[in-house]
């Protein structure tokens, strides 16, 4: 692809994020508040029953969940909505936007939409845990990997939907199965084996954040393995999404 072609794709991804992410933030703020409330409500309950110590676990879990949920799992419903309900994807097939840029644009718009919520979590975490700036050099790439993995998984799953209602439902089910049930809001060492955290990219990230910020007592092997599994999931989900995001349909 020529430099001009790459610039067209980059420009399109940014415009997509503005169009479907930023405009939604400023015109649909109620959704934003609603999407924030899920992880926040868990943090509130954990704080009531566990005190400040567990509030910290809850906030880190909330951050990990907000990245996956607002940035990733909602893509299932939105991608299915744009494809099935609005036929917007069909219109974009006949443009210069390629399937990869479409997927990235959609993922970036979800992240843009989630940014105010993420900012709330980061501010709360900073106020309570006072994280040194240098740790963000580790935290941000970990969260970025989680965002890419969740977005690509979400997009892949959206291509299997033939009714937009299933897309919204699946977002909620995945949020529970991958973001609430595994050790996301609570420490994995409470389970018979902390390695259960490896079942979900959200609990992987939460476990790593607990280890580096709260100095939670996890075996080093678990942390190493967590990073490897997260990297592998990101690559696999991205390949799956790119295969599924081909424009041509057989149905």
């Amino acid at each position, binding site marked *: 692809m020529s430099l001009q072609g790459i610039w067209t794709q980059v420009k399109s991804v940014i415009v997509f994020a503005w169009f479907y992410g930023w405009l939604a933030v400023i015109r649909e703020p109620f959704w934003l508040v609603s999407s924030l409330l899920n992880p926040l409500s868990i943090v509130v309950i954990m704080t009531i029953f566990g005190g400040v110590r567990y509030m910290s676990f809850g906030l880190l879990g909330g951050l990990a969940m907000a990245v996956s949920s607002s940035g990733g799992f909602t893509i299932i419903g939105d991608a299915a909505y744009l494809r099935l309900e609005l036929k917007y994807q069909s219109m974009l097939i*006949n443009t*210069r936007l390629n399937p990869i840029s479409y997927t990235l644009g959609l993922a970036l718009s979800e992240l843009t939409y989630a940014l105010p919520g993420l900012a709330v979590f980061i501010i709360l975490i900073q106020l309570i845990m006072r994280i040194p700036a240098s740790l963000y050099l580790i935290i941000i790439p970990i969260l970025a990997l989680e965002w890419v993995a969740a977005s690509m998984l979400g997009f892949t799953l959206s291509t299997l939907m033939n009714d937009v209602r299933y897309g919204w439902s699946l977002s909620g089910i995945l949020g529970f199965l991958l973001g609430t049930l595994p050790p996301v809001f609570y420490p994995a060492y409470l389970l018979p084996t902390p390695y259960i955290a490896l079942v979900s990219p959200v609990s992987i990230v939460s476990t790593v954040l607990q280890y580096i910020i709260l100095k939670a007592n996890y075996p080093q092997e678990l942390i190493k393995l967590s990073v490897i599994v997260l990297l592998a999931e990101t690559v696999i989900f991205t390949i799956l999404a790119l295969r599924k995001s081909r424009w041509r349909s057989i149905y």
Partner: protein
Amino acid sequence: MSNQVNSVKYLLGAKRLLMAGGVSLDPHGIVINAEGLGKTYDGVKWALRNADLSVNRGKVVTLLGPNGAGKTTLVRILTTELEPSTGKLIILGEDALRNPERVRPRIASIPQEAKPIYFVTPYELVFSYLVFRGFSISDAKAEARRALEELGLWGVRNKIMNNLSGGYKRRALVAMALASNAELVFMDEPTTGLDVFSRRSVWDALARLKGNSTVILTTHYIEEAEFLSDEVIIMNNGLVVSRGTVSELLSKVNGEYVVEVYGISKPIFEGYSYVKLNNRYLVYVDTSEDSSLIASECAKIGGKALMRRKTLEDVVIRLIGGWYSDEPTGDLDSS
């Protein structure tokens, strides 16, 4: 401002030629050449069967036919969205089945039942679409303005879609295709659900596209096909039943007049060509005397008859053969 817009249009025209690979294509050349296109989803029932199609540059071609005729399947294949089960397809000189990515940026399509995103404005919708098509930011702004003005949407450019009527929403989608300056534009039922005023505004826009772009239109409105089309393709049950200009199609069915008869239980039109349409018959006759004769015969057995000149709608019904396949029709015209 108009000079500015004109120079943008000139530059876009030049850009379009470059996008076509630097080849100065014959303005009367063939834009779509399809052979034996077919589509089956389950290997048994065919949504589209053996469709051959050849469309010349700059023409408006309308696909007409009842629901389930295969129009949308054909359009989805031609826009490279759907993979056909059989056939060959050359679009704008490119093999659209092997290299769809070379064709896609040069065409624009508004699918059936497409809806705009509800929280954006018409201007944002068209502008972003043009950026996705590869326009620069400044060209996208200029062309979005031009298209919105042409479709009477400039006054509502900053209103959120959710607050606009169905007619405005539909016209905003048409504005996307209009602004695209694409060589080939597909519009699948662009005026469905529009009031008569909005529909005519879309017709005007489509008429302006004519000549510069080739337009493939599907519609249920026969008068739309008559008003806009250089050629009409009639489809039914996945087959291309007939094709031609409006006057050619009119001449394919015998008779100058049509008598629409209802309220009788059996056809009494010996020697005339007719079809059954639900609970009424359409009888095709050559003279007004024949019309009067049929009307009086019907009246004797308690039926009613309406007489009129034959229209394209009567031709479509005749060529498709009415609504009920189990009901015998009169002698079918060879066409």
